[in-house]
């Protein structure tokens, strides 16, 4: 789901074989995939047994599964963020939405102990379906709010979503009454730490949402519309696209993904922390999207790239933890990665390189 808008790359190549090579080399997924492979190879060399997978109690265990499982919330957030960034927008309220939806779900479910036939059991305060729907509903409302601010009131996206970023955590704390809400209801844990057919359930959630989005974007005109808005919003509107509706839709989708990520996170840690759930997740999501080759200037986007980007970030975190390096170094490494990726993406840098090689 990528197009090249770079005229410099349209130059004629020599033989067909060369052309094929050039196409492969210029494939937008090449760089993120290469980075991930490099990281994995590095891990395989540094960490003995990195690729070992074993089956315990019918579940698949291993570093790779662990990375995938832990990357799930980030992958969801990155999925939504990709489409927002594709329309030249940005959504920095993702972390706050994660906290909000988690707080709603955890507060509604909670869990009270009931002695049933002499066996203590925990019962949800609200039916789980209702609680999940409410959490996602709140996330959708957040998205609607962001979308209306951007599309109708025409605030800059970073400012529009900043409002929810500031207020969202406050609202989440309001819901949880400033406490960390612990969930005791067993079935809810399945979402974030359950296993289905040997694989973590969260992976199925990510895979389903990813496939759905990919189908929507590739098999309908939606992807084209999003690209059109990202490349030139005015031209897209003049061409008859309902850009405002499209932008609202994209923000709603992003918040829905964030809300889903919030459910996964609260279910995984069995509690909702309004202060720290999804803290800085928006930054990681933006980083994942950038790493995946999506242009921050809008128009050029890659859903698969963002997934790879999220995996790169999680693998990096995993590597740093397993090597026994203080986890705080992670931030420095991430910062350097952002600098390198952004600078290497910029056309000024490419021109500089061209001058050097010429």
């Amino acid at each position: 789901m990528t197009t090249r808008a770079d005229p410099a790359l349209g130059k004629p190549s020599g033989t067909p074989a060369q052309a094929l090579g050039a196409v492969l080399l210029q494939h937008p997924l090449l760089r993120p995939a290469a980075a991930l492979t490099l990281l994995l190879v590095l891990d395989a060399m540094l960490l003995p047994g990195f690729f070992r997978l074993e089956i315990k109690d019918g579940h698949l265990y291993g570093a790779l599964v662990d990375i995938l499982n832990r990357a799930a919330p980030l992958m969801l957030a990155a999925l939504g963020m990709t489409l927002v960034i594709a329309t030249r927008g940005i959504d920095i309220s993702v972390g706050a939405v994660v906290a909000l939806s988690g707080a709603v779900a955890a507060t509604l479910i909670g869990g009270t102990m009931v002695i049933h036939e002499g066996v203590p059991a925990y019962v949800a305060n609200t039916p789980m379906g209702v609680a999940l729907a409410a959490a996602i509903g709140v996330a959708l409302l957040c998205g609607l709010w962001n979308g209306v601010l951007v599309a109708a009131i025409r605030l800059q996206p970073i400012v529009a979503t900043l409002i929810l970023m500031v207020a969202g955590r406050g609202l989440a704390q309001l819901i949880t009454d400033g406490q960390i809400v612990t969930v005791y209801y067993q079935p809810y844990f399945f979402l974030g730490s359950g296993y289905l057919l040997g694989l973590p359930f969260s992976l199925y959630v990510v895979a389903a949402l990813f496939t759905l989005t990919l189908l929507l974007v590739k098999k309908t005109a939606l992807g084209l519309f999003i690209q059109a808005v990202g490349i030139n919003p005015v031209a897209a509107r003049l061409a008859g696209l309902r850009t405002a509706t499209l932008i609202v839709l994209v923000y709603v989708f992003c918040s829905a993904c964030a809300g889903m990520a919030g459910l996964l996170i609260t279910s995984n840690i069995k509690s909702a922390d309004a202060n720290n759930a999804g803290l800085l997740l928006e930054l990681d999501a933006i980083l994942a999207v950038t790493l995946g080759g999506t242009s921050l200037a809008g128009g050029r986007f890659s859903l698969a790239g963002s997934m790879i980007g999220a995996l790169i970030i999680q693998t990096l975190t995993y590597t740093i933890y397993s090597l026994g390096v203080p986890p705080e170094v992670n931030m420095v490494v991430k910062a350097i990665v952002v600098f390198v990726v952004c600078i290497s993406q910029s056309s000024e840098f490419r021109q500089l390189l061209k001058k050097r090689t010429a």
Partner: protein
Amino acid sequence: MSALAGSARGFSSVPWFTSLVTVVLLVAMLVAGGAAYPGFLSLQVGFNLLIDNAYLLVVAIGMGFVILSGGIDLSVGSVLALSTMLTAWLLQTAHWHPAAAILAVLVLGALFGGAMGLIIHLFKLQPFIVTLAGMFLARGLCYLISTESITIDQPFFVTVSQTQVPFMKGFLSPGALIALVVLLLAVWVAHFTAFGRAVYAVGCNEQSAAMMGLNVGATRIGVYALSGLCAALGGVLFSFYMLSGYGLHGQGLELDAIAAVVIGGTLLTGGYGYIAGALSGVLVLGAIQTLIAFDGTLSSWWTRIVIGGLLFAFCVVQRVMGGLRGGRA
């Protein structure tokens, strides 16, 4: 502004109007507070607003320049944290002289900001992504120094933190005085120097600024260096205030600083607004916190919700006013 002909346009012009609204809001909040809670409307409560938010004022001033130039700096919170950390480490572990430590921190802060400005300018990157990376970098560097909080017991810092400077029947802290001096300096720089004019010009329209022969690159780098310097100075004031260096200091401060600047009447698209608005913005934020503290029944998270609401109101007002003025994007 010529008196009559300009007054109609002048009144509805964005920076003027929103700045005025903020001052009215501040006065209204103080009066309402005074009516509701005995003892609220004392001079010292007002001074305490300044004392408790001196570091925020300094950071918001730096942010004001960046926003006036049409950019944004998300790294200020972590640069502040890094400065407290570095100050504490230089004093406690390296046993530097306080003056040398403060000077080193300020220079490093300016260099850090300047480097980000250089990257933004050289590679034409969006400010928010570069300063985002800067935010990660500074926060990470904090933890590289130490993951624990470092307590400062250096005599000079302890003395400064305990000094009360008598001022108009009340007292101010040295930090608050420094912040006020910085504010005066910043107003002078913004409105009476070539650099200040260049910042406004670049914020209004970068292309025409460049065509006028202004050095856009130098201005931009200067603006981010200034913001870094202000964040570092904010860090020094913060370590006077807290007497410690910690990597978790100033979390979310960039949002408060942006909110203060916006509430102070500066347009986020750049080019319009007053540096002095940072003072009213910071005081409004401080007054909200004080009101909530005085109330006692409201929990602290209401602060964030109210700030979010104010931010929303001001952005929308700016947008509507901006639209009336002929639609700047």
